[in-house]
């Protein structure tokens, strides 16, 4: 990409960003649509998040157990699992699943509305499509991702507990007491902040890709693809940046 187009694109992205913030505070009247989009976000990703988080809990536990027991440190398992899940595994899995599922959904949905001139139709009837379509979606993903992460954490820990219980009959209470005693407020708080950023990134990137897609049917595929790829990339980038940042407080 040449320098000038890149510069123009950055200015365009910045403008999009500004517009979202301006309208998010100006138009709380969008709550109906936000609620609807929140439900859609939950609905679209619930099954996949449940499934992957559970499997991740099981697999991580089964893989860590042998190496821990070779040090005779099997009792550390709950604390290891809980920290891994809450600090990293839960948010990352949820982020990636949502980037794939929601990114493609939002990107394709907005792009096809753009291509078939539905967005123009809202515009010419004075219906403020930006706040209706974009602000509501970005707000919904930003609000819902933390919830989904908490849920994914619980499911992953449950998967881990079931595995442990299956192998050596550890009781529910004992297991979760150990888990709880090793989780700090900082862990929970930082994971929620991270999830909020994930949610905003997914909503923002996917909406931008869809709302500004090229005309034509190929534009729809391209927008969905861009939405997913760039969202996933940003999940990792945010993860890394947040890790550095949080380590300042540890």
């Amino acid at each position, binding site marked *: 990409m040449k320098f000038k187009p890149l510069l123009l694109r950055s200015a365009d992205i910045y403008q999009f960003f500004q517009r979202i913030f301006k309208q998010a505070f100006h138009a709380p009247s969008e709550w109906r649509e936000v609620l609807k989009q929140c439900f859609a976000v939950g609905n679209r990703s619930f099954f996949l998040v449940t499934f992957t988080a559970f499997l991740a809990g099981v697999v991580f536990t089964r893989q860590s157990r042998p190496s821990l027991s070779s040090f005779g440190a099997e009792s550390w398992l709950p604390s290891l699992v809980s920290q891994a899940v809450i600090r990293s595994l839960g948010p990352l899995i949820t982020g990636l699943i949502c980037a794939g599922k929601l990114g493609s959904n939002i990107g394709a949905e907005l792009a096809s509305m753009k291509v078939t*001139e539905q967005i*123009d139709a809202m515009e*010419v*009837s*004075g219906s403020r499509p930006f706040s209706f379509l974009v602000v509501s979606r970005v707000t919904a993903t930003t609000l819902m991702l933390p919830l989904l992460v908490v849920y994914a954490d619980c499911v992953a820990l449950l998967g881990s507990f079931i595995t442990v219980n299956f192998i050596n009959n550890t009781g529910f209470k004992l297991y979760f007491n150990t888990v709880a005693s090793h989780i700090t407020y900082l862990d929970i708080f930082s994971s929620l902040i991270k999830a909020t950023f994930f949610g905003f990134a997914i909503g923002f990137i996917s909406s931008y890709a869809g709302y500004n897609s090229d005309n034509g049917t190929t534009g729809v595929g391209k927008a969905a693809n861009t939405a997913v790829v760039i969202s996933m990339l940003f999940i990792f980038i945010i993860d890394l940046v947040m890790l550095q940042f949080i380590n300042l407080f540890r």
Partner: protein
Amino acid sequence: MDTSADYLKKSSTAKMGNRPIVASLRHVKKSFGAMEVLRDISLDLHQNENLVILGRSGTGKSVLIKCMVGLIRADTGEINVLGCDVRSLTPDQLDELRLQIGFSFQGSALYDSMTVRQNLEFPLKRNKAIFKKKELEDLVINALKDVGLENTSDKMPSELSGGMKKRIGIARTLILKPKIMLYDEPTAGLDPITATEINELILSVREKYNTSSIIITHDISCARQTSDRIIALVNGLNKEESTFDELKQTKDPDLAPFFSY
């Protein structure tokens, strides 16, 4: 070749009597990159008039009316609609103006995730903050009656035929009681009988809502049935301006082929 300014001088404005002008364009230009689409367009739309803009595919007819509602920014020129200078309005003022303009899209542009009823309710809820069930229902049913499709309100757009979609699209704009209607190729892709029905609808909308309309088309029978006056668009200039019967006699090599069907 005459420029559009020359044409304005001998424009057939006199035929419209002294009806007030509701929209006027002066020397409007628009290019996309190196491609000049509108090179110099000037026209007037009179109160209660049906103005047909005739032109081949790709001559910038859609671009022209999109400039009039500010969907596309014209590069230079004056665009005055209902007393507002479109090019200098703030977004809020533009929204205000757009409420008085109905825009029927070439591809209907129905919101495909909503039912017909929700499509019609959408502009009411968003603009007029009308949320009362009874009031919405009355307005929706009335608008649907006007286009002759009362019993489609619970259908999804994907279940409708092309002609029905066009009608619903028109109903969705009528529901805001516009003063100006802009029809982008209302009959494109429809069979002659359905096309005639749409033409009649356009005429009845003018009767009932007292609108002034610009009808964009390359369909000569649509032009014949709906037009008071025709402007022919060739190479980004408004080339000829007259009534249908006058235009029919034209020897102009750019326009004559339209009539030799």
